[in-house]
């Protein structure tokens, strides 16, 4: 029996040596995953339409005799749709992760990248970069459209060269990217679409606003540091009067991202897929 068994047993199989899991590979994979879902195109289109459309609508319907002016208000009018579109983008960010859990594709993903953390970083980097590019274009395009429509009113005649305007516009881009990244981390922590979207809208967006209605003084002191509020300062043309300075605003955005991704990373490593 032994002789036959020995000759029957084939030589050990050697798998192809040129396939390697890499950080670049994970980034390309997440890029492919993002653009091969119809929902990505639909949601990003919605975000673009709302943010440009609402900005244009608000700017286009300003009465000629409106007695407010200045760069601050002009930028505020132009960007009135941005807050709304940030919700679309955040929801999409959440879905890039929770969608994998709800459909089961997370098992394929984590079998291909068993160290797991690279998947989280890649999702954040790819989606963050896409949102950064898209909204840089959007924010500036909306600003120009808005200025064209505001021409002849008190709010017209603002240019990128005016002090603080370009910085404020990039501030809007940074705010959206920050909120998007926060949403991705929330998705990774909660793993459930409805729960994550509810948490993002309820706790990140609405709760800090509701909290200002509370009568206690300390609440007022704390709310500027809430994750959904810390990015407000950088969107102002003149941030002087804000609760947080520009530097503090960036610092707190960094702190919240570190907290969110730290928790998401630890949980991703510890939990079963």
């Amino acid at each position, binding site marked *: 029996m032994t002789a036959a068994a020995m000759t029957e047993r084939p030589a050990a199989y050697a798998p192809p040596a*040129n396939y390697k899991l890499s950080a670049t590979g994970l980034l390309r994979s997440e890029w492919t995953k993002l653009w091969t879902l119809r929902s990505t195109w639909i949601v990003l289109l919605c975000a673009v339409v709302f943010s440009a459309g609402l900005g244009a609508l608000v700017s286009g319907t300003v009465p000629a005799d409106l007695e407010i002016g200045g760069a601050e208000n002009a930028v505020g009018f132009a960007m009135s749709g941005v807050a709304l579109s940030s919700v679309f983008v955040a929801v999409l960010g959440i879905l890039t992760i929770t969608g994998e859990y709800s459909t089961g594709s997370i*098992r394929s993903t984590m079998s*291909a990248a068993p160290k797991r953390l690279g998947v989280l970083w890649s999702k954040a980097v790819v989606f963050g970069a896409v949102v950064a590019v898209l909204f840089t274009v959007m924010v500036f395009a909306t600003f120009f459209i808005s200025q064209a429509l505001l021409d002849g009113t008190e709010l017209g005649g603002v240019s990128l060269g005016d002090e603080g305007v370009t910085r404020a516009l990039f501030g809007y881009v940074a705010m959206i990217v920050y909120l998007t990244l926060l949403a991705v981390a929330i998705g990774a922590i909660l793993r459930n679409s409805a729960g994550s979207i509810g948490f993002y809208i309820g706790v990140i967006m609405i709760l800090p606003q509701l909290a200002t209605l509370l009568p206690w003084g300390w609440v007022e002191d704390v709310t500027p540091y809430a994750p959904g509020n810390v990015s407000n300062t950088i969107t102002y043309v003149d941030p002087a009067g804000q609760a947080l300075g520009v530097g503090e605003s960036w610092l707190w955005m960094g702190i919240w991202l570190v907290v969110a991704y730290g928790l998401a990373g630890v949980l991703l490593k510890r939990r*079963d897929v």
Partner: protein
Amino acid sequence: MNGRSGRRTVVIMIEIEHLTKRYGKKTAVDDLTFNVKPGVVTGFLGPNGAGKSTTMRAIVGLDAPTSGLARVNGKHYSEFQSPLSEVGALLEAKSVHAGRSAHNHLLALARTHGIPKRRVQEVIDLVGLHEVAGKRVGGFSLGMGQRLGIAVALLGDPAVLILDEPVNGLDPDGVKWIRVLLKGLAAEGRTVFLSSHLMSELAQTAEHLVVIGQGRLLADTTVDDFVSGNGKSRVRVVSPDAARLAEHLAGPGISIASPEKGVLEVSGTEAAVVGQTAAAHGLVLHELRTDRGSLEDAFMQLTADAVEYRQTTEGATR
């Protein structure tokens, strides 16, 4: 790298060592130890809920063991530089985003490892999905989903294949196809480890068997030994002198049943003994035959105590 290019000294590819996995209070896998070797198809058999899927998930690192180890080629799965080329796994069939096409699902996975598009097309053709590769997976039938899962498992051309219930949902042609495919892959020297709760399925594909029930190892043996060791083999005798023959055969450890007049079913002895007994007493035999137990019988016998969700008449009428 582990002597891959040279002569292999260790021929164990999957190593399960005292693996225990508990989900809360429920123990899914209980101190399980076994090895899987390359070059043959190894079947992983057990009733539903026996812990097969949990064991397989532990091998590819999706579930962390409560204690014990699951290693592939001497390493934990997450230590590999090229996981998809080491182990190809089909776990639950639908491990795919329903909104993505089969091609794009494979492409996204291929990109992680720098696997070329050509290989994606190859596996699509291999599993016979070329006509629907561009369609969204949400509309796939169970069988198409299984084929896609198999394509995923084969994508990295891996040394080890782990397939959880791969024939589920396949049509008879598909079942035949996968049997041939798996045997061929094993013949190339790969390790093929597939689970099923159906004995008959594994009997036709696997050479070696690992049987578990309630998370514990019940048997780790070849299919042939498993049947002869656990199957109830009986000797069937047709004789006009059946009643007298029964008297002469009776003894300790031997049970004799007579399903109809002139027919005996004797267990606990062999046909040769029955024949000699008949000859010694001058009894006429019309038929003497050994009924070898089926794999199914062997499995039922072995897992009788280990079936977790046994349907009782009590439960059925409640």
